[in-house]
């Protein structure tokens, strides 16, 4: 009885298990049908009007709970009964979509079948970005190593750095569907073949070939060559060689031998062949048959390229050798270990760079009439800011990824800090050579003290105290006055004559962009036409005039900076002149002009007084604020100038309400183009932060960013588009996302009025895809907080990272994998580390898809 009972029970259990397994398979098939057939239909034909934002007829087909709801006329979808479903009733007779092409016969059949089969949804929400994509877009493409992966793999595998050569020889990769590593677009050109050959030769040439062979293949001898080739091949190809491959590499060695080559040469040529083989250049996986679990070496390679963008290291290979990597706990520990390696940081920055398309900054050329301070250097610093910010938030502070949207910090260069109006303070790295230093820290009185400590102080006297305002560490010249040394600057002039070198360093805020004369900031002179040196302002530019025996007393011609660089912001100006007569002018740490003039300071007059803010006769007044003036009898090198300007440093933005988070950084704000278009900014937020989509503008619609004019700000134009019935369907979904950014101009500078005098706004209401209620905000910082708190944004990180890791666009059928990874990542705190761990240990990374699957 007992045995019979056991057998019967076992049979029953088996039946239950089978039934459960069959039910699970049915559910999976039904979910797949939804992902692959139904969600694309809804995305393509319905969601333009019936999503959470528009909800025309109060119908939202983007959300499961809403789509299953009841309207006045009945239920939209009645699972199991298409005929009773409003959705089917409207579609079958082509009543819907309105004014759009009807569903095809096939699509209708699919829709009807789906409803009749129970209307199973795979996820709570339809993702138009993924569900409208043709599954062929994610075909199981073999991945060629990207240029960066190739360089890193060479470095990991051989220790040789070929970055510069590879940059020169390999064709650049192009973006496809948001990233440059999209496998389908990693095509191959003749120049790749040439480059791989040349680079392989270069690597082998730099390598200690015999040591490399010994390390990976043991003792090197002709007899042991097969084993050596096997060892080197396994290391370079990231898996054991197949017999044909081994034979092929040995044939190369044999060819060398036939040509009377020695052992070293045999190994060298075999290595060159390995570095050009498909097993090295492509991430080839065994595959075959149905989807299957990755083998140990395949998994090691997948994880390694996911975390590092490079080949496995020895420890990972050992875990693969032992098969241990297939154990989830071992895999997790390996991933944890790898995330502690600097290569993981490098890989994450590559992700950020591609995700945010920061490479485009190098190509921007904003209209110089409106953006005179734009340079390629500033663009590079904007890119650097975002990457360093990413590094700080993600790696230094280990904060959740969503805090990238509102973290109150940034890392900025002096020039970018000036661009942002960040609070800056004069720095003094080295007092050496100071002959005069004014820090304006007196706070009151009519004397500015020389703090140089160089001999007798060369204090300055303010001629009319009522024309100045003292504040902490600065002196504002609000009206015409003169600040003049009480005695001639004899001591300083002697030092300069002696050293034959000079640096004049000034921190100023300018109050009048049209003052001329030149208006004197600093002058060592006796009158308007007789000077040793003068730093002046001629409207939009600065000029430095220096006397030399060859030039004469007026110091002309002087060094002029480019026009329109004078700003009302705090700027750091430095002029240096060396013994050879080479003059350099730096603005906020960056060299902006040079000149070369003959002569030295031998004819400088030791009886001239040092003056600030005017000429001795009062004829060249300057208005603005001094924060520091320093004179050195040496030339400050560029690095010291940069450091004195503040250097690249971390800024706490707690007190800077207009900055904080990715969207307030110029690197992203430039996406709007010169006109700071709300369309392109809004689309960026929609696509790249919220992972949603609207169709492109219809053909013929003028998509050129429209210029603003008096009475027509970007906000006004956006609201008109949103009010226009023919545009609002799409524009209401994305333009409000940029409402909080209107105060940032085309290059990311903040202003409350545009150049036409239009008041700029920062209030709005955030409409997140999938969230029916708009969330009002008054200030940009509130918008940033809302985005940072959005689950949609959070989930977007998972999607973007997964796409980057897989090297292909995501599909609707990936939704379950995304959900599982996201959940695991959030359990780990939602950090980069937790997300990458979740991805690297996920089912999708552990599974090799059926190569025949489209």
């Amino acid at each position, binding site marked *: 009885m007992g045995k019979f009972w056991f057998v019967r029970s076992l049979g029953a259990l088996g039946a239950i298990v089978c039934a459960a397994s069959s039910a699970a398979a049915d559910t999976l098939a039904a979910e797949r049908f939804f992902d692959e057939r139904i969600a694309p239909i809804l995305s393509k034909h319905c969601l333009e009007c019936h999503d959470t934002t528009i909800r025309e007829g109060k119908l939202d087909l983007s959300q499961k709970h809403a789509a299953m709801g009841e309207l006045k006329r009945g239920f939209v979808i009645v699972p199991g009964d298409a005929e009773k479903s409003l959705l089917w009733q409207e579609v079958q007779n082509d009543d819907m979509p309105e*004014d759009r*092409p009807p569903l095809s016969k*096939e699509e209708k059949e699919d829709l009807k079948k789906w409803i009749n089969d129970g209307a199973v949804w795979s996820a709570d929400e339809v993702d138009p970005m993924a569900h409208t994509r*043709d599954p*062929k*877009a994610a*075909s*199981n*493409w*073999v991945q060629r190593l990207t240029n960066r992966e190739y360089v890193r793999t060479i470095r990991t595998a051989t220790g040789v750095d070929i970055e510069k050569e590879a940059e020169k020889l390999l064709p*650049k990769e192009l973006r*496809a569907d948001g990233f440059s590593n*999209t496998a*389908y*677009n990693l*095509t*191959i*050109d003749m*120049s*790749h*073949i*040439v480059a791989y*050959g*040349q680079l392989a030769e270069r690597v082998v040439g730099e390598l200690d070939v015999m040591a490399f062979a010994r390390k990976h293949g043991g003792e090197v001898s002709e007899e042991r060559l097969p084993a050596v080739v096997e060892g080197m091949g396994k290391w370079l190809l990231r898996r054991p060689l197949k017999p*044909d491959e081994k034979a092929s590499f040995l044939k*190369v060695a044999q*060819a060398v031998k036939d*040509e009377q*080559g020695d052992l070293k040469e045999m190994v060298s*040529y075999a290595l*060159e*062949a390995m570095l*050009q*083989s*498909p097993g090295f250049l492509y991430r*080839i*996986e065994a*595959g*075959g048959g149905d989807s299957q679990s990755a083998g140990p070496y395949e998994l090691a390679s997948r994880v390694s390229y996911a975390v590092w963008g490079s080949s496995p290291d020895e420890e990972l290979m050992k875990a693969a050798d032992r098969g241990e990597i297939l154990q989830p706990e071992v895999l997790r520990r390996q991933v944890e270990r790898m995330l502690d390696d600097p290569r993981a940081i490098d890989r994450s920055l590559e992700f950020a760079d591609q995700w945010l398309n920061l490479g*485009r900054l*190098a*190509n*921007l*050329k*904003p209209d110089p009439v409106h953006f005179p301070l734009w340079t390629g250097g500033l663009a590079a610093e904007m890119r650097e800011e975002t990457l360093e910010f990413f590094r700080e938030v993600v790696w230094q502070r280990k904060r959740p990824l969503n805090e990238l949207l509102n973290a109150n910090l940034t890392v900025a260069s002096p020039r970018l800090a000036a661009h942002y109006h960040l609070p800056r303070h004069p720095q003094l790295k080295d007092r050496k050579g100071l002959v005069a230093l004014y820090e304006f820290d007196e706070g009151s009185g009519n004397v500015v003290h020389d703090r140089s400590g160089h001999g007798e102080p060369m204090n300055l006297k303010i001629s009319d105290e009522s024309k100045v305002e003292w504040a902490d560490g600065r002196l504002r010249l609000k009206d015409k006055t003169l600040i003049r040394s009480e005695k001639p600057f004899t001591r300083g002039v002697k030092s300069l004559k002696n050293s034959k070198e000079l640096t004049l360093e000034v921190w100023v805020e300018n109050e009048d962009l049209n003052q001329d004369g030149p208006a004197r900031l600093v002058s060592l002179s006796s009158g308007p036409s007789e000077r040793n040196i003068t730093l002046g302002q001629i409207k939009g530019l600065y000029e430095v005039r220096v006397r030399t025996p060859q030039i004469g007393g007026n110091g002309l011609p002087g060094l002029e900076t480019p026009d329109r660089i004078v700003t009302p912001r705090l700027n750091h100006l430095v002029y240096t002149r060396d013994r050879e007569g080479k003059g350099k002018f730096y603005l906020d740490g960056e060299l902006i002009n040079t000149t070369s003039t003959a002569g030295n300071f031998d004819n400088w007059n030791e009886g001239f007084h040092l003056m600030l803010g005017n000429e001795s006769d009062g004829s060249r007044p300057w208005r603005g604020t001094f924060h520091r003036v320093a004179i050195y009898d040496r030339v400050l090198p560029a690095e010291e100038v940069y450091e004195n300007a503040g250097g690249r440093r971390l800024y706490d933005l707690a007190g800077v309400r207009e900055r904080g988070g990715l969207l307030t950084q110029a690197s992203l704000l430039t996406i709007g*183009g*010169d006109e700071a278009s709300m369309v392109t900014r809004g689309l960026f937020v929609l696509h790249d932060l919220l992972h949603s989509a609207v*169709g*492109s*503008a*219809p*053909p*013929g619609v*003028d998509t*050129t*960013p*429209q*210029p603003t004019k008096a009475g027509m700000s970007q906000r006004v134009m956006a609201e008109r588009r949103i009010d226009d019935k023919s545009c609002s369907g799409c524009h209401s979904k994305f333009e409000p996302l940029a409402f909080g950014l209107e105060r940032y101009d085309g290059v990311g500078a903040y202003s409350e009025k545009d150049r036409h005098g239009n008041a700029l706004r920062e209030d709005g209401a955030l409409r997140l895809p999938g969230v029916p209620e708009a969330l009002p905000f008054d200030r940009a910082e509130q918008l940033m907080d809302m985005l940072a708190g959005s689950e949609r944004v959070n989930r977007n990180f998972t999607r973007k990272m997964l796409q980057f890791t897989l090297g292909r666009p995501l599909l609707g059928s990936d939704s379950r994998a995304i959900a599982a990874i996201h959940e695991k990542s959030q359990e780990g705190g939602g950090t980069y580390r937790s997300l990458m761990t979740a991805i690297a240990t996920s089912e999708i990374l552990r599974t090799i898809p059926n*190569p025949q*699957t489209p």
Partner: protein
Amino acid sequence: MKTGNITRRTMLKGLGTITVGLPFLEEMMAATPAKAAASAVPVRAFNVFFGLGIPTPLQEEGFAGVMEPLKELSDKLLIMRHVDHVRGDQPGINAHYDGSTAAFTAEPPNGTARAGGPSIDQVVRATHYPDGMPSDMVPTLVGGTFFRRDRVSRYTKSFALDGTVAATMQEEPRDVFERVFGNVPGTDEGDPRRMRLKRSILDSTMDQYHYYTGPNSPLGAASRARVAEHLDRIREYEKRAFAQESRKFKAPQMPPDSKLPHGGVADPGGEGIDITLEDLTAEWRLMADLYALAIQCDRVRFGSINFLAAGERIRLKGDYIFNGEKRFHFDDGAQRKSGGANGCSHEWWHAFNEDKPNEQLRAHAHMKLREVTYFLKRLDDPEFNDPNGKSVLENSMITISTESGDGRHNDPKRELSGIFHAITGANGRFKTGQIMDVKAEGIDVYNTMLTAMGCERKIGPEKRDFSSVDKIRA
């Protein structure tokens, strides 16, 4: 940059010394007629694309309007009006970069860097060369003079069977020269032993690529195609590097470095660039010369070349002279009173109004067709006639495609209607010498052309009844 035409004569005359792949020179040195006697006319197919298109009403003016430059080749062309890209016309499709992808593919794009399917030239190639092109040929040549580049489909117009780009874009004349004519580096001519050893590396590599493209390959179809592409490039490399000895030979000078911006800097955030007509046409014509020469020397049989991208943004300056007569003075920025994107010639298309003169648009479109004609005329050079005595232009299937830049809304369900198309006779397969009101969908026109070219495969969405447009066939 000023350049003269490159002809076979000047090629052989030789102005400089450069290393040129011998297979190419063999082709060049052999008298074409002698070779012709032994060979049939090769099947060739190319697409010539120009950006922004010709508004339908202007097409109606025939050669009296902006199509005037095509007149001198009119007996060798079939100009087709009223061809619609219905299949590419879906909600959310943008005419510039999406719609233009439909030209000679009949499908909207499938991603930002690929079409929904193959272009017609690649279907012809796959049909007539199922085992690949001879290894001494460039399998597909894609070149062009263009600037806007935020999407690959704006400027690449030859797509492989899986819709990916059929070949890497060669965007400078120098790139085309090196891709087609230049010798490949990496072989040491002075050291035969080293060459033999390099050859053994290549053999080893090719064996392995063979495996991954063969019947036992673990790879799926898409991946196998990619690896096969790699193998093709290696074979080509092998042919050029090893099959025949390369020599220093007197040949035309390497084209000078381009003066125009290329790469990312050519498209500063979509704001457009300033360029003179002289610089633009000088570079294009050199590109066109080299591309045509590649065809005439039978180094290339398939591919595409484009003059300006879909939705191109340039601010052009300069006098436009046609047949010795000044027709217009280009100065887009000043005429539009704007810099940046709004000052670009692109905006003349957006501003097109049938009831207005549209002078600027007309001049730009006329100029583009002048330059397209320049390329076509190079292929009509009798010095390079095929064995049947006809020119390369007459024997090849050359499609001239463009986009809908002006956004005609003559039918709200057909935004992409009335796109300008033109084709050559393809060795007597298609009618020429007329402007035909085809009044058909592009997909049917293209598939009719494929049928005429002996191709069974159809392009465009599957499961659709094919409606032959027989009136275009000869």
